[in-house]
């Protein structure tokens, strides 16, 4: 009994169409440059670890609190604890199950990449990252690379 109609266009989309057609708010050059540069961040052959919800203690809301993010693909779990420090971000990670020797990670923002060896207990850390988009590449001997889905850390 349901007849499918095209959904009514919502306010934001109508406003977007008006503005696009008015041509008075062109895409800034740096936005185009960043979009083109994003391509250099692809990791050929990588599988993407998707975010999964993590339990957060009730009442934890402040942006000054540590945040825990968890990403999984297959059996691999990458957990990231994010701690804002003076407008920058410290990141402590845990790879599980325990990785083989020689496992490395690259913590990436659009503008910088920090490489780390993962410890025998599966841990790694990077300090002083700028807030914004980031992703972690995990490289294990004998496996294809895994990237965590790009996530925004807000200041």
């Amino acid at each position, binding site marked *: 009994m349901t007849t499918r109609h095209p*959904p009514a266009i919502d306010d934001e989309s109508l*406003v977007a169409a008006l503005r*696009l057609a008015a041509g008075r708010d062109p895409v800034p050059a740096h936005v*185009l440059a*960043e979009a083109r540069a*994003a391509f250099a961040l692809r990791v050929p052959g990588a599988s993407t670890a998707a975010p*999964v*919800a993590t339990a957060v203690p009730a009442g934890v809301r402040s942006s000054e609190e540590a945040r825990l993010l968890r990403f999984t693909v297959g059996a691999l779990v990458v957990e990231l604890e994010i701690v804002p420090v003076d407008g920058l971000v410290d990141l402590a990670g845990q790879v599980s199950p325990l990785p083989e020797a020689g496992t490395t990670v690259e913590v990436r923002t659009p503008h910088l990449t920090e490489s780390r060896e993962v410890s025998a207990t599966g841990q790694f850390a990077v300090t002083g990252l700028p807030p*914004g988009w980031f992703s972690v590449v995990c490289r294990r001997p004998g496996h294809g690379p895994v990237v965590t889905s790009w996530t925004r850390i807000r200041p």
Partner: protein
Amino acid sequence: MFFAVSEAPVSDQQTIDAALAGDQAAWDALVTHHSGRLWSVARAHGLSAADAADVVQGTWLRLVESLHTIRDPERIGSWLLTTVRREACLLSRRTRGERLVADPAAEQADHNPTRADLAVHPDPALIVLTADEGRRLWRTVETMHEPCRSLLLLMATAPDAGVHQLAVRLGMPSGSYGPTRGRCLNRLRTMLTAQEAQP
């Protein structure tokens, strides 16, 4: 139809395949083709230029990691628009001071529209706007009564003006701007729908 639900496959399969094979020029072609719409959608959610830039950048980063799972040139436009809308909604809610974000991972969990999402819920944000359609849209606005005509014109051509500035320029109290804008958009939507109904 004015706002097509499926996009013309301007990004053809060759372009996608070339990008998947690592061809930067092919990627640049995708960027050139889709950026205007992504930017307009982000800005239409009331984001500042800096926040809109952040949202658009994240959308492209997500495409980099997802392109091999999409592949279909007809789906890329809708995937990009759905992604930019979700990110823009999240950020605009946050900048409006609703900081009830208990868990970043939870809100991220569904950030990649799946094939099923797009098939079952065609996204109304698919703005396929040729130059002709853009002119038709504005011709329709021109036929509207005041204050709608001036309000929509001002809103679209003063992208960084805040509610107060817009209200002053329209000679109305700030508190009236939002509701009036809502009524004008409804009216415009009705007019466009009526046009679509006629051959």
